[in-house]
Each structure stands twice: as structure tokens, then as C-alpha cells.
């Protein structure tokens, strides 16, 4: 690794959003059916909205996050893992806002992928009206650094 330039120093970059995300009944129903299930009758949204709402309402686009990491989104970021902790259910008709930050960007060498940067970021989903987060997610993306391949 000594011969490689360091990964950009992006830890701490804010991903706080400025817009709200509302889970509509129409979209929730379409989303549920696209995954092979009917929407819940109790007003709860599909829990995968933890990922969708945080991605859509965070303070940067996917391309923008990549750009912060000095990575071209067209080079193909790959999802490595996704974790979530819920403190409440996500509800249809509710609006949410996002806070978050990049936790780390670590340069590694992989036998399969060559040089890559491993990006970890954390996003929290809060009721738009205020209050504690109802979900917190840590996502890991792999950014292949083809230009640094030996």
C-alpha cells in the first residue's frame, strides 16, 4: 500500500439533507407489489424505505457522494453491505428528513477487484416534524480504482 496515494480524506463530510421524503400510499403499494407482496393493512410502510428514503433525501446524490470521494459514478460503485437499526416503524403518509455523515474511506488492495476504496457512511431518518431518528443505517460501498491498478 505504500506505493499508493492515500484515499481522499472525506470522513466527517456531512450528508444532512435539506428536503423531506414522504412515503405515499401509492408508491408504497407499487413498491411492495414489485417485490412480490401486498402493502400492509396497518399503515406501516415497507421497511426497505429505510434505504430508499435516506438515499433520496440525503444531502448529496449518489453521484455527489462519489464525487466527494473523487470517484466517477460511471466507474460503477458497488454495494458492499447495508445495516439498519429501527427504533420505530416507517409509516405511510409520514414525512422524514435525513441526517448523516461519511464515516470512512479506506483504500485497500483486493485479489478480485484490485485497488479499491471502501466507503462507509451513516444516515439517520427522522420525523420531519422533529424528534429522534426512527432508523439509522450504515452502508458500505466499494469503489473500484481501476486507474490505480498495477
Amino acid at each position, binding site marked *: 500500500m505504500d506505493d499508493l496515494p492515500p484515499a481522499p480524506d472525506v470522513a466527517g463530510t456531512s450528508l444532512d439533507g435539506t428536503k423531506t421524503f414522504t412515503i405515499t400510499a401509492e*408508491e408504497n403499494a*407499487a*413498491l411492495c407489489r*414489485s*417485490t*412480490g*407482496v401486498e402493502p400492509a393493512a396497518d399503515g406501516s410502510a*415497507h*421497511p*426497505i424505505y429505510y*434505504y*430508499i428514503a435516506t*438515499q*433520496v433525501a440525503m444531502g448529496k*446524490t*449518489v453521484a455527489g457522494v462519489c464525487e466527494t470521494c473523487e470517484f466517477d*459514478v460511471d466507474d*460503477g460503485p*458497488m*454495494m*458492499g*453491505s*447495508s*445495516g*439498519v*437499526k*429501527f427504533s420505530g*416503524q416507517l409509516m405511510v403518509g409520514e414525512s422524514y428528513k435525513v441526517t448523516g455523515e461519511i464515516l470512512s474511506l479506506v483504500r485497500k488492495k483486493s485479489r478480485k477487484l484490485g485497488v479499491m476504496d471502501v466507503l462507509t457512511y451513516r444516515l439517520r431518518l427522522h420525523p420531519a416534524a422533529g424528534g429522534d431518528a426512527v432508523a439509522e443505517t450504515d452502508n458500505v460501498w466499494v469503489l473500484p480504482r481501476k486507474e490505480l491498478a498495477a
Partner: protein
Amino acid sequence: MSVSVGQALPPFAIESVSPDAMRDWSTFLADPNPIHLDVAVVKAKGLGDRRINQGPINVAYMMNMLMQAFPGCRIEAMDSRFLDNVYEGDKVTASGKVTAVDGNRVTCEFTLDVAGRGTVNAGTATISV
């Protein structure tokens, strides 16, 4: 509900992953990445010859398996690792088993498998039942 360690969870299957769903999810995710929409782009990138399912859809399949195994449950925490791509036309099956029970809190491990190719996602979840 009686739950015991080692109990297998009923599988949840999608017979054929739909490119129409991928198009819908491009809107849901506000992410028009063409590898989910355009076979020509997938081929040009050397990623195969079929459109690639968005990763969060695969997570949703595994959530569906958990929620159908425990009707009325609430997922408290879930971690999943992405091991390989899912392509249009793939048959995918989410399955799992109970690894711990603590009162009304159940911990499970699970996988998402593609027919003929093996495991493409794997993870753990804690559920309140």
C-alpha cells in the same frame, strides 16, 4: 407464537426477477444507473448480458421472507452483505433459520440464493415478534 432455535423459516421466492421492477426502482431510488435499465450498457461494462437488479430490492426480498415468517413482527435490526449480482430472469429464494430466542426477540440468519448460482446475499436480523 412458538419459536425455537434452529427453526427453519419458510422460503420466499421470486420466480423471475423483473426488469419492469428495476425500472420502477430507478424512480423510487432516484438513481437512473443504466446497468439496471439498459442491456447494452451492462454488456459494454463487461458485467454480463442481462440487466442487474438494484441491491436494495434484494434486501426487500429478504425482509419479505422475515415478515411472512413472523406475521405482525417488527424488524429491529438487519445487516446484509452483497456477495454477487442478481440479474433479470433469475429465480431468487430468500430463506433462513432462527439462531437465538430471547423473550419476544428472535435473531435469525438468512440468505438470498439464485437458482443455479448459489448465495448472492447473506445476513442477520433481530425481530420483535
